[in-house]
């Protein structure tokens, strides 16, 4: 019965991230408990941060829902970016840099172009995507042409993007206070007073529309097109794909280009949605690392990335609420890191899951004498 077996395999695949998330929250609760705080307050903050409902004191505030969307949008997109590259067998640690390239390009278009809103906003978004794509093309090209490992190149490009962004913001566009550029014209902004009003003054903006389109595009390209099949084939087995006549090198570059475009879009949305000016940054803001977490937990599939993006967005939007409840907001980062680590320990988790189901092969993986054949 091959069909049932396939189903079973699929089930256990979904079980790993679910189990990792549960265990991650359990670990986070333990850390909170050890440091003398009440984990229930943490969960109350998380629920309040995602639904707006305060269980402990009662009351509902739609602003939190708006903030959840705001926090989820960029990491959903960097999640798509990392996930897309993963599906082609590439590890994109560079979503952060691609995002910065995107936000810089968006700044340039927002400040220099004069156009009505229905032209200006799409131009800003497309410029962000194009810049992110170009920044992603560099590691893709170096990998395809010289077989240089994309991990080191993308890490280095993140820092180059950071300093290039700062130079451009401060020296090219000119800064009023050495932190940000002048305000963008209203025609470039995704902000809308109406959206802010219905969510009780949150920073919610129209950025969620391109994000939804991006998730659909991700799913469509990878699952429904021949091109996407070619990309996935490279991810499954590079040599076999090459033998089957696919253009492996070209696919790698294109995969990084598309991955970069997703991250660049995130940059444009942050710059013209959450903010309304270009910013010089003292350090990376961690969207790239968040994207890795989102892609891993979402198993690089569109629906999974959507859920994982909302999950980690929830942790972020709950941050200030936790802080005011006396729990340091950094617990969110601790939980996130634990979940990533646990998903990375997939093999170990699968063993534990088997063990929980009563299949006693023992925890043999803990000893160096285990004879398993790897993944």
């Amino acid at each position, binding site marked *: 019965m091959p069909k049932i077996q396939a189903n079973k395999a699929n089930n256990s695949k979904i079980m790993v991230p679910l189990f990792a998330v549960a265990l991650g929250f359990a670990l986070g609760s333990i850390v909170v408990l050890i440091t003398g705080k009440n984990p229930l307050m943490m969960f109350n903050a998380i629920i309040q941060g995602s639904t707006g409902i305060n269980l402990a004191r009662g009351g509902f505030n739609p602003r939190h829902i708006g903030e959840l969307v705001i926090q989820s949008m960029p990491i959903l997109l960097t999640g798509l970016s990392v996930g897309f590259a993963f599906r082609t067998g590439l590890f994109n640690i560079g979503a952060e840099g691609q995002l910065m390239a995107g936000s810089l390009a968006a700044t340039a278009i927002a400040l220099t172009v004069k156009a009505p809103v229905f032209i200006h906003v799409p131009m800003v978004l497309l410029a962000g995507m194009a810049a992110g794509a170009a920044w992603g093309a560099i590691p893709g090209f170096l990998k395809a042409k010289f077989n240089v490992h994309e991990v080191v190149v993308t890490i280095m490009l993140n*820092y180059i993007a950071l300093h290039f962004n700062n130079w451009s913001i401060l020296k090219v566009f000119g800064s009023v206070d050495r932190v940000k550029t002048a305000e963008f014209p209203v025609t470039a902004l995704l902000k809308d007073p109406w959206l802010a009003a219905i969510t009780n003054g949150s920073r919610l903006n129209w950025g969620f529309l391109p994000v939804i389109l991006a998730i659909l595009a991700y799913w469509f390209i990878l699952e429904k097109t021949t091109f996407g099949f070619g990309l996935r084939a490279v991810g499954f087995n590079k040599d076999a794909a090459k033998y089957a006549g696919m253009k492996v090198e070209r696919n790698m570059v294109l995969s990084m280009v598309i991955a970069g475009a997703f991250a660049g879009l995130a940059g444009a949305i942050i710059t013209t949605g959450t903010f309304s000016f270009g910013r010089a940054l003292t350090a990376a803001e961690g969207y790239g690392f968040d994207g890795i977490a989102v892609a891993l937990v979402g198993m690089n599939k569109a629906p999974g990335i959507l859920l994982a993006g909302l999950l980690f967005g929830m942790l972020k939007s709950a941050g200030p609420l936790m802080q005011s409840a006396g729990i340091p907001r950094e617990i969110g980062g601790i939980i996130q890191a634990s979940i990533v680590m646990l998903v990375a320990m997939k093999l170990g988790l699968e063993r534990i899951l088997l063990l929980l189901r009563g299949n006693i092969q023992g925890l043999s*993986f803990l000893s160096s004498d285990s004879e398993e054949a790897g993944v």
Partner: protein
Amino acid sequence: MSLKLVLEMFPIALMFAAPIIMAALGGLFSERSGVVNIALEGIMMVGAFAGASVTVVLEPVTSMAPWLGLLVGILAGMVFSLFHSFASINLKADQVISGTALNILAGGLTVYLCQIMFRQQRTRAFSSGLRKVTVPMLNKIPVLGPMFFEEIYPTFYLAIILVVLTWYIVKKTAFGLRLRSCGEHPQAAASMGIDVYLMRYAGVTISGALAGLAGATMVLTQDIQYTVSSIHGTGFIALASLVFGKWNPWGVLGAGFFFGFAQILSYYAKDIHFLAAMPQEIFYMLPYALTIIALVVFAGKTVGPKAAGEIYDKGKR
């Protein structure tokens, strides 16, 4: 560029170079054993947090507090790196993902603990970190004296000693040979009776110790307290030095010097005629850009450990 300016720049460049060199040596041990360690940054953060906290707490009691801080930084780095070893060696986790997890964890954990211990986003400020030393006799040597022996942090000499030690251990001892063999061809190493798991644990744990030391050194020589941005990418510059130095201790030393200088050139560029016109951001970008170029130049040649990043699978031949 006058000689006086060079002499003035040197001690500061050495201060920046020391932690880069230490952490890069850590990366060398780990990668030579076959485990890629992009968590150097995170381990440095943990070492810096531990070093700063111990210094703050013990300062009123003993004048040796910063040195104890270094020691605890080393221990904290070793313990923290065990997560990476366990995940990537025992559980065959992807080494890059595991390293990423540690980097995320370090930022969260250190600031969380700061809030618990000091009720703020950073550690309390210590009144004095490590003290500079002047080496008697040697500081009288013309030119070289003021460059290397006057008002220098002792951690710089420690970094130099570590370079020599690393070279000796990795290149001249049986342990080093075994370590390297695990990074080149673990299956062949195992067939000669080498415990690959053990050697990789050793490699990663040593890298944890060195990166922890690097973090503590950095905060105790360049900062007054630990904050989440105390390390600001130095772990990744160390990674760059490792690549740029071709996974070789002497290469790492050279690259560490070079990148240390690149960091301070941004401050001094205005005094140097031919550099004054360049924006300081260029100097910040330099290490990263050069590393990418180096990678392209090295491409196709065997410079790094062959099996680094590969999951060790006993069944593979």
